[in-house]
């Protein structure tokens, strides 16, 4: 079995060829920001030169295309139609200039309390057309509880715009402002993302590759590339997720652990609970947009090997900005990497230049260059270690809502620290000392991201709400609202959730053997009106959790 994994990062594009779960070849090229395909072409050139494309079974890509489009504002204008009802003031919900708030309201139980103004929707559609707005997002409060109004609006507006994203399709989680942001971003990057997908498909075609191609999502899971075009927003922030999945693939232990990816500009921190990377509770945040995009919980801090080091008020300041590579590689300012070179913790770069860059600081602080280097190194490690401790604290203090959970008080206690990234080797030991953890630097750490992409399984989630008083079962993300009998039970809900999730995962490209479904939420409430039980409110959430393709372990 041969797998090709590619990670198109901001600086480098990495690729690995994996045969029988061993890295057979790896390649790294500089990313050409203006032409990602060029980078893809170059990096695969080398790897596939002597390969028979027929032997390839799987290609997985992780790409920054979505993230970059948002960062650089290379997005399309999106007309927003919002059914906000009572609650937060529209002024707090306005995401862009093209927001239209219309009448209508669905309540927390999915009951339609007020209808939409169809004529108004038509007028808005005409206005979009007149203004040349091709893209539209429709988002209603509680639309995951009843998607009907979003669907109704879509039907009216369909002829006026080229493409529409519907809020209820994005996630089963409640959070209207995040649903607005997610649906907006999904539509705003759709065009640029679809073009990328088209080009990738062409490229694979030219390389005579005809097997399924997958894209990595923010949750460290994969999705079939064709399927991903409807939900491009799910591919944001997949870069950091790729590295974390890479670490996961290279370690055997299934303990609570910390994973660090120390890069040039930033350090990413992730936490594993019994070997499974933690997910964000609601969704990831990208450039200030809080979303409902399911994603790994990764904290990024502005400290890396190339962080600019300054001397301020008699002390050392590290980062958060990166102004170029380390001085030892011709960069303009001293960096932690230069400090590590001076301390002989690594033998890369030109030591003379590193020393020269630290000299002004040494003079200012009236100490030796070595002492300055030591201070910089210590402070860099301390910054990272303290961010790790903050993150552990935050995770262990997450709010819970049942007595059982409070009394159980399961705290994560990392048993090991995994480190990847450029400065991993010189820094790992000291970080381990500071955090009181043994450290492990996985093999092929420099291409962990590509390996992670290559070996990640397809992930999916599904939330179900059954309300036997109303006699309805709602699966927001699927747009389903179906009738159920009064005797419907929690077991029924779990069974349906699993079936539906299986169907969805298969559609997304999952293999049967990777379908490790787990129940993540399972609650049942008696609904009492007056003094009689009138029904049950059942809430079930199931997922295929982030992990590696099953065959890997066999």
């Amino acid at each position, binding site marked *: 079995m041969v797998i090709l994994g590619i990670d198109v990062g901001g600086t480098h594009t990495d690729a690995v060829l994996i045969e029988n779960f061993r890295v057979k070849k790896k390649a790294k090229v500089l990313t050409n920001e203006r032409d990602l395909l060029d980078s893809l072409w170059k990096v695969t050139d080398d790897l596939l030169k002597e390969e028979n494309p027929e032997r390839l079974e799987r290609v997985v890509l992780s790409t920054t295309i979505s993230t970059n489009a948002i960062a650089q504002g290379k997005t399309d204008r999106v007309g927003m139609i919002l059914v906000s*009802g*009572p*609650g*937060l*003031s*529209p*002024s*707090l919900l306005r995401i862009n200039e093209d927001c239209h708030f219309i009448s209508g*309201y669905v*309540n*927390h*139980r999915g009951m339609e*309390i*007020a209808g939409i103004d169809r004529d108004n929707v038509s007028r808005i559609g005409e206005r979009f057309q007149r203004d040349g707005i091709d893209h539209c997002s429709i988002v209603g*409060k*509680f639309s995951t509880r009843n998607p009907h109004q979003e669907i109704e609006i879509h039907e009216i507006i369909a002829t006026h715009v080229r493409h529409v994203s519907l809020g209820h399709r994005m996630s089963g*989680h*409640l*959070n*209207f*402002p*995040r649903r607005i942001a997610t649906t907006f971003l999904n539509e705003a990057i759709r065009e640029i993302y679809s073009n990328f997908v088209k080009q990738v498909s062409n490229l694979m075609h030219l390389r005579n590759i005809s097997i399924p191609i997958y894209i990595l999502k923010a949750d460290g899971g994969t999705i079939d590339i064709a399927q991903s075009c409807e939900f491009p927003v799910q591919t944001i922030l997949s870069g950091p997720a790729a590295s974390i999945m890479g670490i996961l693939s290279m370690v055997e232990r299934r303990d609570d652990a910390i994973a660090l990816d120390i890069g040039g500009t930033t350090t990413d921190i992730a936490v594993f609970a019994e070997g499974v990377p933690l997910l964000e509770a609601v969704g990831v945040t990208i450039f200030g947009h*809080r979303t409902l995009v399911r994603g790994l919980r990764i904290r990024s801090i502005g400290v890396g090997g190339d962080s600019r080091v300054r001397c301020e008020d008699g002390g050392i300041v590290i980062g958060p900005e990166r102004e170029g590579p380390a001085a030892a590689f011709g960069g303009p300012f001293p960096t932690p990497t230069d400090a590590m070179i001076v301390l002989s913790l690594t033998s890369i770069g030109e030591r003379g230049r590193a020393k020269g860059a630290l000299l002004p600081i040494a003079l200012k602080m009236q100490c030796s260059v070595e002492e300055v280097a030591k201070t910089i190194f210590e402070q860099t490690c301390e910054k990272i270690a303290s961010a790790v401790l903050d993150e552990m604290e935050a995770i262990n*203090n*997450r*709010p*819970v*809502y*049942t*007595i*059982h959970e*409070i*009394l159980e008080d399961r705290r994560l206690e990392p048993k090991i620290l995994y480190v990847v990234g450029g400065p991993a080797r010189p820094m790992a030991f000291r970080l381990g000392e500071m955090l009181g953890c043994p450290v492990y630097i996985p093999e092929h750490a420099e291409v962990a991201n590509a390996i992670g992409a290559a070996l990640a399984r397809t992930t999916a989630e599904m939330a179900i709400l059954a309300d036997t008083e109303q006699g309805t079962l709602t699966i927001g993300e699927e747009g389903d609202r179906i009738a159920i009998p009064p005797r419907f039970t929690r077991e029924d809900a779990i069974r349906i959730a699993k079936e539906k999730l299986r169907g969805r995962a298969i559609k997304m490209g999952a293999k049967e053997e990777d379908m490790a479904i787990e129940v993540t939420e399972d*609650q049942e*409430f*008696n*609904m*009492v009106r*007056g*003094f*009689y*039980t009138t029904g049950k*409110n059942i809430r079930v959430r199931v997922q295929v959790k982030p992990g590696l393709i099953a065959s890997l372990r066999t």
Partner: protein
Amino acid sequence: MLKKERKTGLIFFPAFDWAISPTHPEREERLLYTQDQVFEEGLLDFDNIIEFKPGVAVDDDINRVHICVPDTRSVITESHLISAGGAITAAEKVMKGEVDNAFALVRPPGHHAMLVVHGARGFCNVNIEAIMIEYIRKHYGPQRVAIIDTDCHHGDGTQDIYWNDPNTLCISIHQDGTTLYPGTGFHREFGGPNALGATINIPLPPRTSDEGFLYILDHVILPILDEFKPDLVINSAGQDNHYSDPITDMRFTAQGYALLNDRLSPHIAVLEGGYSIEKALPYVNVGIILAMAGLDYSNVREPDYDPLTIRQSDEISRYVEKEAAEIYTLWGKRDLMREKLIGNAEYVRRKKPIYYDTDGISEQQEETVRVCNDCGGIVTIDSAADTGNRIFAVIIPGQSCPACRAKGEEIYTSTGKDKYNYVYLQDRERDIFLVK
């Protein structure tokens, strides 16, 4: 609407696995729709709204406030420790300056729990606000505290606990006790001899709406707070004044609750009752959270909100105006009244029957307070319940004077167990709790 944003702490603990009984109003489902609404409105994503996990209170926190018979573990469950712990967490975050104010959206509630606890009454076992206040006093020094109880039911438990404490102002605004549980909370209940005027009751007629509540706030509560000058203002935030509440008969709205909290600006709000779990709580709580955080709440309203159908009558308006004038006059005369009430008495006694409706227990109680000009005065309680328990308790108040302290210690030492199953000493000043 531009306002100054405030940093608001939120302790949200719906106790999804606890109920008094499966069909009881105080059950698992109670905060389910509130959670849905708070999540869907995205309130936890605001930078100035921070959610904290509740702490767990310990027996000492309860013994600082209550005399639990025979002991705390016999009258509470874990859920009460978390609900009180949630209130304590709210207070800690405010006292440490991590937030400007905080809302403990927790259950089960507590404002019907009195000083002596033989069981549960009005769905309450222990008084979570009082536990929180005494925790604050223990860890952050003596404080003048004002509790504004906006639950529809008279906050009789809180009133009982602070009856003799001149440093704790208890104002309860509620539906008239002649028409609603617990049947108390009239003007004449005005505090013990050493704390006259520190208990204020404002009964309102059924069907009072936003207009009436806000009139009372502006014309009675805020002026009295101005004079009392509390260090801390606490809203004992029941939500059963709502027009859709199934067990009360008032016409307050989500918008009204938001306005009230905006104007009152409590440091800490603690959820009490409120059983319109679908039609009121989701909206009322969103309104309170936004108001506390200084965010625009003008768009918060119930989906079925219709101002015309819930307007109060002119008759009620006139009644409320008269009521406000009367109470404010009464407050002004509190010192004169004290002289008249006490005369030359050295001790003042009151006898009261207490019924624990939730647990079906009856208690007869005699409370004796030493008249004192220097502190809240030593309090003794002789209490017999039809569970067979008879107890005697001596309470030494916070900031007690030497004379009261000496007297209290003497009474505790000299009281034998011949008549009583248990004899307790609760020393609020030194945080000592003894049982024999």
